[in-house]
């Protein structure tokens, strides 16, 4: 759901950019507190993996595709602050090098997918995990991934409406519906990827596993 140039008006572009910058600045101070230099390679690899996975569009419904967002994946494994920086980097590379997402919409795309989606994913993951029912771990991963996509779709719809590109009541239902389906793919891939990475982290760890996010090795 990368917003291209032309969908947002100036006030929405400026407001979302300001919000994103403030959020990233805060994330950077938190990451500085949390991270050691030995965590640097693992964050780089996570970002590289998310970039690659985002290229693989899978079909949903007739004539529509979706791809992994990765916000929940990064948030569950590294906590929301590192995750927001990882996702921002992916979006910046996509925008600058591949013209995926408009340069004027970069702030909005970062706000939707790198800031809001990662933070909500983190909260949902911790909340569901705390319920401690049978299968709560995998349910927490799936739900946090599914909801992270909906959060992005919701904010995108609101920004389009604020920009007078399309009325909110026209755009909100189709956006939420299509992303509710894409979110199922997000949930499945995130469960698989979290399981895979956790399994190899069980041995030795070069990763920052953030306890705030409820992340960690079971």
């Amino acid at each position, binding site marked *: 759901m*990368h917003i291209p140039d032309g969908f947002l008006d100036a006030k929405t572009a400026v407001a979302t950019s300001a919000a994103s910058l403030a959020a990233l600045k805060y994330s950077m101070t938190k990451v500085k507190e949390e991270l050691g*230099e030995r*965590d640097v*390679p693992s964050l780089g690899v996570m970002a590289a993996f998310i*970039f690659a996975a985002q290229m693989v569009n899978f079909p949903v419904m007739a004539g529509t595709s979706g791809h992994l967002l990765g916000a929940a994946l990064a948030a569950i494994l590294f906590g929301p602050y590192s995750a927001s920086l990882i996702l921002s980097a992916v979006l*910046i590379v996509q925008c600058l090098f591949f*013209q*995926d997402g408009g*340069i004027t919409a970069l702030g909005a795309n970062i706000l939707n997918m790198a800031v809001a989606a990662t933070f909500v994913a983190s909260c949902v993951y911790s909340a569901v995990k705390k319920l401690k029912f049978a299968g709560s771990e995998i349910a927490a991963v799936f739900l946090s991934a599914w909801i992270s996509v909906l959060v992005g779709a919701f904010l995108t719809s609101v920004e389009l409406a604020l920009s007078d590109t399309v009325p909110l009541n026209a755009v909100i239902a189709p956006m939420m519906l299509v992303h509710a389906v894409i979110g199922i793919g997000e949930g499945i891939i995130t469960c698989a990827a979290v399981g895979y990475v956790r399994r190899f982290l069980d041995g030795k760890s*070069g990763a920052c596993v953030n306890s705030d996010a409820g992340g960690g090795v079971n």
Partner: protein
Amino acid sequence: MNRWAMLLFLAVVVAAFLSPFASPHPDGLERVAEDLGFLKKGESPVLQFSPMPDYTVATINDERVSTALAGVTGTLITLAFVWGWMKLISKF
């Protein structure tokens, strides 16, 4: 082999061998924009400086090879970018 190096290898494999076979259909937002008639508003990028627009390398004609090459390049650029950025954060 370092476990993170294995994940990086997996990322490169995904970029090289899965991305050329990705669904070509519009994504969720593009689909909605098309259905509601505002897709054309987003068809003119403000700046056209991206070296690999739409994940293709201009000099390569084979579409799949072009996408694979763009994918691997982007994966490595992202790795380098985050590595450098995090290194800076951890030092300053």
